[in-house]
């Protein structure tokens, strides 16, 4: 028989175990010494040089802000992981989101209201208004800060062009030429002449891009209804269908998303694809692209009222951040994302450091502020530009002549998801009924618009 001492001893151990479990679930308290610690996002899977570059920037920031400690947290926005992070409260204090999500997240109270801190920034009133509106609440308060803007571009592999007997300095200027070049590349090399994203909402994103380039829209002018079931969308789908089934020019993977298509392009398995014009940095730092392979051109525009789909990135702050953390977060955004665009010393210092670490400097982008400021910025970084600018000339020489079109504003990601299915159907079913697919997608998109209007 056990003695009471034994019993109480063992019970005590059990209680201690329970206490330890409870303690493990506790939350940390804020330090009382006035110091603030913030977590900030850093791209996942960076090459060591890129990570060193980031750490060096953190060191400079912490020296200038001795009361703020910065901790890096790997984060790359994707529709699905962002939702989980947002709901689970595991986002860093400072994170980035696409233009399309800004207004919806602000309306849902899912971002911190940092407008009072943003208003104190010396250049707060100098943002390009078309760009700034993506991060503004109904009352005009700037809850999320635009840090980059882009127009879509046609990325192409110069090595595959040469292998197919094409001139890499003369990329296709019409969509018919894109088709013709794709077939030549595919026939000559066995790789995909032209590939397109289809998964994780990117299928809808790129389809919308092509629809705009063909002169159509997927949303009406006042953003009150979808226009998915339209001639322009059908024309683009038929174009993709012909590339896939008549020409057999699109390779064998029809389930690409942003990450996987970048991987395959950098690996030399894709001749051409459409994505953001500033994609070069990602291709180099996360996918080890050989710069010699790279070429970038503007999208061909055709039809009555064509345009270039534009987009961009907003920096935002977690709604869970305290007031002190919000202020520190805006300080970080100002330092890390904006000063390297507007402050000459920081611009030069950032570009110099990045170049010394073999990080890309000078990848194409669109102005977050005015054209004049952008020109000044480009002159500051000119000595440090290390990207193959000549290979991007077909894009940079013509991009400002293309009319920019904003992404659809209502239920954007949901409609993109619907269109993923449509694009996949066309690429994987030779007998896909495009008219029916679009009619169904239109009905579902209208339901999404009605839901959003409630």
């Amino acid at each position, binding site marked *: 028989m056990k003695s009471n001492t034994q*019993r109480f001893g*063992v*019970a005590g151990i*059990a*209680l201690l*175990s*329970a206490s330890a*479990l*409870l303690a493990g*679930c506790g939350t940390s308290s804020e330090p009382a010494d006035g110091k603030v610690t913030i977590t900030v996002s850093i791209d996942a899977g960076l090459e060591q040089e890129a990570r060193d570059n980031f750490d060096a920037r953190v060191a400079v920031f912490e020296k200038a802000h001795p009361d703020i400690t910065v901790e890096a947290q790997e984060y790359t*926005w994707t*529709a*699905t*992981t*962002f*939702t*989980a992070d*947002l*709901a*689970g409260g595991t986002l860093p204090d400072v994170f980035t*989101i696409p233009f399309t*999500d800004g207004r*919806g*997240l602000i309306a*849902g*109270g*899912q971002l911190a209201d940092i407008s009072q801190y943003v208003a104190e920034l010396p250049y707060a009133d100098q943002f390009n208004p078309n760009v700034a509106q993506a991060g503004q609440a109904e009352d005009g308060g700037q809850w999320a800060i635009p840090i980059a803007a882009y127009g879509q571009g046609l990325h192409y592999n110069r090595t595959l062009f040469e292998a197919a007997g094409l001139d890499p300095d003369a990329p296709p200027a019409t969509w018919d030429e894109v088709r013709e070049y794709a077939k030549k590349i595919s026939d000559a090399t*066995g790789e995909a002449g032209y590939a397109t994203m*289809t*998964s*994780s*909402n990117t299928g809808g994103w790129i389809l919308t891009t092509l629809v705009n380039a063909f002169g159509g829209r997927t949303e009406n002018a006042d953003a009150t209804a979808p226009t998915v079931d339209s001639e322009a969308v059908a024309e683009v789908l038929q174009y993709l269908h012909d590339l896939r089934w008549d020409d057999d020019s699109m*390779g*064998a*993977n*029809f*389930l690409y*998303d942003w990450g996987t298509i970048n991987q395959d392009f950098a690996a030399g*398995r894709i001749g051409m694809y459409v994505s953001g014009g500033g994609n070069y940095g990602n291709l180099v730092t996360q996918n080890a692209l050989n710069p010699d392979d790279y070429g970038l051109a503007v999208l061909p525009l055709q039809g009555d009222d064509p345009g270039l789909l534009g987009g961009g990135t907003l920096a935002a702050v977690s*709604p869970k951040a305290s007031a002190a953390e919000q202020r520190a977060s805006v300080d970080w955004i100002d330092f890390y994302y904006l000063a390297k665009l507007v402050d000459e010393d920081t611009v030069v210092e950032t570009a110099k450091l990045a170049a010394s670490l073999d990080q890309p400097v000078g990848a194409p982008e669109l102005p977050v502020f005015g054209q004049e400021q952008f020109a000044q910025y480009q002159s500051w970084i000119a000595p440090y530009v290390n990207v193959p600018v000549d290979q991007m000339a077909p894009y940079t020489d013509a991009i400002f002549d293309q009319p920019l079109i904003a992404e659809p504003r209502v239920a954007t*990601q*949901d409609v993109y*998801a619907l269109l*993923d*299915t*449509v694009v*996949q*159907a066309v*690429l*994987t*079913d030779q007998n*896909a009924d495009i008219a029916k697919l679009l009619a169904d997608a239109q009905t*579902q998109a209208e339901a999404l618009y009605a839901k959003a209007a409630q």
Partner: protein
Amino acid sequence: MSQLSPTRSAPPAPAAVDAVAHARTRRPGRGIRGWVGGDGPHIIVFLLPLLFSFGLFSWWPIVRAVVMSFQKTNLVSAPEWVGLQNFVNVLQDPLLGTAVVNTLYFALLALLMGYPLPLIAAVLMSEVRRARGLYSALAYLPVIVPPVVGALLWKFFYDGSPTGVFNVILGWFGIPPQNWLSDQSLVMPSLVLFATWSAAGGTIIIYLAALVSVPPELYDAAEVDGASIWRKIWHITLPHLRGVLLITFILQIIGTAQVFLEPYLFTGGGPANSTTTILLLIYKYAFQNSLGGDYGAATALSIMLAIVLAVFSRLYFRLTRNWSTS
């Protein structure tokens, strides 16, 4: 012969039966005082960490999910009570029918491909006299490969280009390359093949363990009678495995009804929703919209699936009760 067990000895006298029954129900110190004076408090203290862990990580999320199925919430701002609306929305979703059909198709293929294979492998392995441990280890190996690693590996195999591993093998026989994951008719069998590869090892080990319980004398007797290997399997092995087979069958049905990993890792539900399963649809409700998912719809569908599976399991055990114990 060994000694007969007490239950097989002569029936005891009625008085003896009463005494035994009484002894079984009456315990010394029963009641609050006895409980407090005995081991009761210590048991509770011992149970506390376990109860706390289960409560926090298992039961609370279930309760939370049930509550959330009646709410509209993005988990950041305050939730709104919407009654049965989430259930109505889910049932009206045209994708639900597609997801149910796809899930049933996966389950059917998994039954045809995945259910018999481990049984056949286990029976054959049990016939092997030498190096049985090595075969067991080899069969179990895929189970210890993390699913994401396995999926990456199989994505190479399923590469639709002529240089893909499976397509190279087909090429040896003059068969043209196949789009394993991008062909709407091939994609589901491809996922089931991977699922079978990754899970069969575990089931093989269960069958092998059950086969150990088959008395070797029965096989010896059958051999003396000149029975072939197939007759031994049919008349001795399978009847002894019946209970295990019933359990693995229901586990397979429950598992395949909740298939998520394979379509998520390989296809994201594509192409054109041909691999969108119920679990993947739940996932899409929750996480597809980056503005904050429809967690109410996701939990409503989860609860409906759980109820259907619970009812099915109950019916299954009721219907097979006699068969499994006969």
